[in-house]
């Protein structure tokens, strides 16, 4: 058992108690090994040592905390667009403002206590604490109450369908009996070690280099759903660098790698025992959209014509084929991921959509008055002032670095003086959120999810503030589109298309940011120890092979239940 020591770290107000965890020093007795054929080795999620196991700290928690350990009421299958009841047996709006969830009977926490409605109520009420990621919920929710042991009733002031369904499959239910004894402070900001949830895996150990999970042999799903997980252990390795990740993968030390591995296409084609979702280009599923953000508060990016010209100018195909070696796909003009293809308004795209066309770009620029007056090969602004722009990505993000070289030379080809720039991540982030950049690539909020609302609320984040860490980096200020996005949130799924169509029209007319390509759901695996991997192939399961945060509850946990030990 790990030893938990509470130490007062900070003396001045506000006094904060931090739980500092001393890693359990294993008794140097028996040899503890995670046998290769009983263990699933993964990598690709963790870029630093695991430090948090708190499901409230989205993004910071160690690999698998939500999914393997803590579970959600529903899962969401993005490929089918379906919610899969998980802890919940069912859930539905019983009236306009009341949603009722029925829990499965017989779910147990890993410590043997039953999981009941009280836990669910407790979890959602945690959202009243500032700092919890679903704190916004309580702006439009009235109350949550346990009707009986297995029924939870949510009463809203106003229903925000998109946000609500999103939370249904992303809020992990935590055990009230463990959490209520701790301070709010600790619950929100503590590392929560060891985590104790209801999921298929229990905390085993962790170190600087890895996170180890151990199978929960009493997992409820085995009894209730007949699903079980085969790997006795899951060891997730911390990535020191892509180079090491590839080296390890090639040595067969990793079963499932969610790293971006350059040249993976070469390896797949070259007959290495490496598998990917598709065995041909683009090899990977698409996970998010890389946007070219332009700072609309600066000249000439404040000019929609200029922005549109940029959209036509960028040679995305070169990025896709040369930089990525075809492991990514060109983005749709709307930027919506393939899983959201149904929401793309074809008519609008046919009318306003763009594609690589330097001549068109030049034409637009010429018409808008951007001409090379002084003959240095670069265009000047209509008022005659020089244009010298920079496009940035963080240093070391190699694929993006190569990509903006292409973007820059594309821009130069149509006469725009655009130079690539590679500040380190800190500088990049400061400029991006502070609105001092010219152009930049970013994809942070465009992740795959159950609703394009998350995508649009990131792309058109409002209001415009001094610091914009959560999207709309270009500070595109258009109340009309902001209102539409808000409306989208309140719109039920079946009525969304109309609202989205309006948004897309504005988007393609004003072109605040240019969608370039879809980053892949980097995933490559090998069969040496585990088989039963999902893939696009006939007969294979279609769950996401991904260990990243937020993907376990997008069916990756189901992928795990399909794995079988390889015949040795």
């Amino acid at each position, binding site marked *: 058992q790990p030893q938990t020591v509470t130490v007062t770290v900070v003396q001045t107000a506000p006094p904060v108690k931090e739980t500092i965890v001393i890693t359990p020093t294993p008794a140097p007795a028996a040899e503890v090994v995670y046998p290769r054929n009983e263990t699933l080795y993964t990598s690709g999620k963790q870029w630093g040592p695991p430090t948090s196991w708190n499901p409230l700290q989205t993004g910071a928690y160690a690999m698998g905390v939500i999914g393997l350990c803590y579970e959600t009421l529903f899962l969401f299958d993005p490929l089918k667009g379906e919610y899969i009841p998980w802890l919940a047996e069912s859930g539905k709006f019983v009236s306009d403002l009341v949603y009722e969830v029925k829990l499965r009977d017989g779910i147990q926490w890993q410590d043997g206590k039953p999981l009941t409605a009280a836990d669910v109520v407790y979890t959602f009420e945690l959202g009243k604490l500032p700092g919890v990621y679903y704190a916004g919920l309580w702006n439009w929710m009235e109350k949550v109450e346990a009707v009986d042991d297995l029924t939870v009733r949510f009463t809203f002031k106003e229903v925000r369908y998109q946000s609500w369904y999103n939370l249904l499959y992303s809020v992990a239910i935590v055990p009230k009996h463990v959490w209520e004894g701790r301070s709010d402070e600790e619950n929100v900001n503590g590392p929560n070690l060891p985590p104790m949830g209801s999921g298929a895996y229990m905390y085993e150990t962790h170190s600087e280099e890895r996170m180890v999970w151990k199978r929960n042999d009493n997992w409820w799903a085995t009894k209730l759903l007949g699903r079980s997980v085969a790997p006795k252990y899951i060891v997730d390795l911390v990535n020191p660098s892509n180079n090491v990740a*590839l080296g390890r993968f*090639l040595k067969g030390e990793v079963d499932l790698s969610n790293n971006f591995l350059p*040249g993976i296409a070469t390896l797949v084609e070259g007959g290495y025992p490496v598998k990917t979702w598709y065995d041909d280009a683009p090899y990977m599923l698409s996970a998010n959209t890389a946007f070219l953000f332009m700072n609309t508060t600066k000249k000439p990016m404040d000019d929609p014509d200029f922005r549109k010209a940029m959209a036509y100018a960028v040679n995305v195909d070169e990025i896709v084929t*040369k930089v990525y*070696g075809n492991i990514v796909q060109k983005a749709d003009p709307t930027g919506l991921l393939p899983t959201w293809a149904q929401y793309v308004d074809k008519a609008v795209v046919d009318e306003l959509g763009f594609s690589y066309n330097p001549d068109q770009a030049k034409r637009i620029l010429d018409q808008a008055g951007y001409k090379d007056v002084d003959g240095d090969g670069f265009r000047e602004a209509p008022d005659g002032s020089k244009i010298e722009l920079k496009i940035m990505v963080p240093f*070391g993000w*190699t694929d993006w670095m190569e990509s903006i070289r292409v973007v820059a030379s594309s821009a130069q080809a149509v006469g725009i003086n655009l130079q690539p720039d590679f500040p*380190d991540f800190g500088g990049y982030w400061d400029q991006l959120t502070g609105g001092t950049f010219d152009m930049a690539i970013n994809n942070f909020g465009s992740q795959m999810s159950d609703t394009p609302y998350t995508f649009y609320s990131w792309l058109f984040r409002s209001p415009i503030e001094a610091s914009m860490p959560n999207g709309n980096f270009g500070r595109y200020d258009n109340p009309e589109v902001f209102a539409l996005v808000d409306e989208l949130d309140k719109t039920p799924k079946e009525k969304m298309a109309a609202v989205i169509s309006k948004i897309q029209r504005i988007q393609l007319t004003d072109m605040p940011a240019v969608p370039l390509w879809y980053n892949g759901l980097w995933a490559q695996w090998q069969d040496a120890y585990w088989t039963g991997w999902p893939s696009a192939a006939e007969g294979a399961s279609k769950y996401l092979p991904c260990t990243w945060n937020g993907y376990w509850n997008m069916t990756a946990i189901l992928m795990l239940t399909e794995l079988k030990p390889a015949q040795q």
Partner: protein
Amino acid sequence: MEREVLQEVEELKQLPRPIRSEFVYFAWRNTKLRIGVSILLLFVIFAIVGPFFAKYDPHAYIGPMGAPPSREYWMGTTTFGQDVFSQFAHGTRSTLIVGVLGGCLGTMIGILIGLFSGYRGGLVDEFLNMITNIVLIIPTLAVLIIIATYLEVRGILTQSVFIGCTAWPWAARAIRAQTFSLRVREFVDLARMSGRNSLNIILTEIAPNMMSYLLLVFILQFGGAVLNAATLDFIGLGPTRGVSLGLIMNNAVLWAALQLGQWWWLLPPGAAIAAIVGALYITNVGLDEVFNPKLREM
């Protein structure tokens, strides 16, 4: 690495008074010097003319992707289809520039601090000595990492500057010791009795006497700068624009050149750096032998 060699220079107790013809004679007879200088010259010439032979923009995607060396692409192409030879030619040039600039700067700061602290002695010396010690204590590479992150845009010039700014303490120490022994020489007193001021004396009496020594120090600083630059490039803190041998290697590693079998991308730049720096070190030893009659072989 560089330090050990410097240390040995520090051992050089007394500088001979080279008679020019003698210097040339021994320089020419010294195999180490001949080998070192030839290799260096080769690279310098290549750095000067190489880029004119490079047909392509080093960053442009012009060829097949990941092709091995061929008649068209002398050193093969990168994963993206860039011509490795073009990169190599331009990279050699900027690597040498960084080496020379960084080496010059390091030597220069070292000379200034070393001369002043050695000539002035007393509190000035104590103070400068402490600064030198502090700069020595703080781990160079770590500081370079920090400085590198300070700068949003890094060019080979800025890189040279901050390499030079952290590499000087050894030079300063060595030069200080030399100055100490020179400043009590009687010709310095004579100059003072002629009414010369301190700066004048340092520059016209003391410094010229250390020329051979300074040359040795510079060569070591040069080599050190090339290696430091390569390491910085390698950890991803190299110039954000342009190309250097270190950056080629960095890219090759990031794009897994070796694992994908593209040895022509990673091996040549590393070998070239080893050759350049090795040649510098060998030249240094050769020169040392030439300057110091004790080490000459008759």
